[in-house]
């Protein structure tokens, strides 16, 4: 009898939080999507409390991807890709390396762990300010070679305008198709090695189609820009990437160390008795076991780097186009330029990129819980 009443109370306690999150997360996301389809900020009183908005469809998105004036957005998108790939690979590799070192149980392990992890507690603004000084053209890092008798480095970390790996924006669909095909070929090869021929063919077929399309199907793609537009990896982003790796490698270290400690000593012993060297133990036994941790870390790091705003703002300044990021551009477009609808469209694109990582992660975590519960 009491239980039903208590159940109602329980739900009533939860309800305010659910309503708040419902409105502030889901409602607001919907509203931003709606705003991105309007002309808010194209003229008139953009800062009015109840501004006039007219639906104009996907015009803002079209502008961002193909508009002559929005080359910076396209470069920022490319930057976000390279930021993400570099941070994920860098922080994973360094974190795993440090975790393996600490897994050898050196004396003073706690001290080292604290030292590797402390950057994680700092704010991005602090990290950005400190690294901006370290990487200043006339500052810290560039002088280091002089200590060993070499000439000082001249690299302009944050302000370099050099670009490598450049490509024409028009060929982006072909490049994407090529990358997807490469992944599919790899999966197919793995399935083939595992003896699952059917699956191997099922993944190889779309890969071949994609490659054929990338080579021959280009004329089908409408001309996106009137003139070729080069984008690529901005060398100025390396400094930001280094600072981000410094900040987050301790985090991956903590994740991996917890994982390594979770592997039973018996397994390590068994590998040793089978004649495996320590290196073989880590490569063949430990790292495959840690795969779920790697996956979580990839998702967390990718979503962090896709919303990296404060670090770039503090380190390079928001107006530095070379180190730009859609998260920064959204702020500039919306709150400096008062182009709210355009800013909303950038936010939606950013959100979709993050959702690409987060939704599968949450779905799998939901399934796992559900299985455990039932």
């Amino acid at each position, binding site marked *: 009898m009491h239980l039903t009443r208590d159940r109602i109370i329980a739900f009533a306690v939860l309800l305010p939080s659910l309503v708040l999150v419902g409105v502030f997360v889901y409602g607001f996301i919907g509203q931003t999507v709606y705003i991105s389809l309007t002309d808010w900020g194209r003229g008139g009183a953009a800062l009015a409390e109840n501004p006039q908005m007219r639906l104009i469809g996907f015009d803002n998105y079209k502008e961002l991807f193909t508009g002559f004036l929005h080359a910076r957005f396209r470069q920022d998108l490319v930057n976000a890709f390279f930021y993400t790939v570099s941070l994920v690979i860098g922080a994973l590799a360094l974190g795993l390396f440090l975790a393996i*070192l600490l897994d050898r149980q050196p004396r003073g392990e706690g001290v080292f762990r604290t030292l590797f992890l402390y950057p994680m507690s700092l*704010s991005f603004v602090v990290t950005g300010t400190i690294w901006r000084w370290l990487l200043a053209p006339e500052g810290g890092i560039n002088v280091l070679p002089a200590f060993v008798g070499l000439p000082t480095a001249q690299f302009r970390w944050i302000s370099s305008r050099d670009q490598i790996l450049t490509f024409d924006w028009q060929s982006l669909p072909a490049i994407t198709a090529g990358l997807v095909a490469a992944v599919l070929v790899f999966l197919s090869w793995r399935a083939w090695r595992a003896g699952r021929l059917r699956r191997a063919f099922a993944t190889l077929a779309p890969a071949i189609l994609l490659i054929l399309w990338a080579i021959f199907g280009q004329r089908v793609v409408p001309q996106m820009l009137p003139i070729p537009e080069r984008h690529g990896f901005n060398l100025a982003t390396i400094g930001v990437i280094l600072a981000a790796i410094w900040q987050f490698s301790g985090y991956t270290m903590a994740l991996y160390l917890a994982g390594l400690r979770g592997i039973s000593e018996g397994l390590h012993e068994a590998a040793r008795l089978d004649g495996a060297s320590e290196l073989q133990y880590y490569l063949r036994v430990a790292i495959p076991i840690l795969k779920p941790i790697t996956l979580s870390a990839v998702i967390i790091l990718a979503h962090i780097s896709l919303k990296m705003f404060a670090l770039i703002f503090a380190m390079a300044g928001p107006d530095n186009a070379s180190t730009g990021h859609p998260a920064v551009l959204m702020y500039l477009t919306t709150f400096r330029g008062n182009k709210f609808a355009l800013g909303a469209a950038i936010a939606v694109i950013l959100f979709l990129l993050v959702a690409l990582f987060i939704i599968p992660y949450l779905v799998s975590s939901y399934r796992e819980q559900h299985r455990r519960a039932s």
Partner: protein
Amino acid sequence: MTARVPWARALLYATLVVVAAIYLTPIYMTVITALKDPANINLSTAWQLPSPLNWKSFSQAYAKLGPNFLNSIILSVCATILSSVLGSLNGYVFSKWRFRGNDLVFTLLLFGMFIPYQIILIPLFQTLRQMHLYGGLPGLILAHVVYGLPITTLIFRNFYSQIPDSLTESAQIDGAGFFKLYLRVIFPLSIPGFVVTFIWQFTQIWNEFLWGITLTKYAANPITVGLAQLAGGEAVSWNLPMAGSIIAAVPVLLIYVLMGRYFIRGLLAGSVKG
């Protein structure tokens, strides 16, 4: 094993010391630059220890950052307490009063902590303006409480699911209702959970920047915004931003050094499934 390959052990320590030195380099540079006189900060002596020591950098930086520091204290303390209390109650419901669709609702709630906040920023900005909360600390506190709910609920739900159901069931048989059960059984066991969420939320809110810069006016700017403005000027003498960075970092670094174990637990809670 240690005795078998002593050189491997030596190599291990050498690597650890070198990496640790690299991790400490930014702090070294920050401290020595903060203690230098602006006139002595230049290319050739960037790595040298300061002499004489210029402690005035800190008082000068604090003269500029003091109001921001206080704002951040008020903001972080209020938002941390509110979001932790709500998270504790939510976690209690999600773990001990499971209902139909429990896991689905929980997952939908969790989604809120992974979104890039740009996606809600414009409606949040408009809503706070309409509520006349834009520009001041209460609006910022509201934002931090609402968007803090997913992580605090997650930490408490995982924490409470370790409390055996037999304990709560026996209390229920003794006639304890929803709130009595919470106050008599759950809450007294919650202290470690509160420590983890307090530390996590305080650090996150203290370090937050995007909302600080878009949702507050000058008088309510938190410390991160103050520091960004202090360091943002072009003709800046580097001792001030470095001293400012130290001022902005000290509260969270202290928490980390003193309560690192709990900080790591919060860190792992946000990434380990379930």
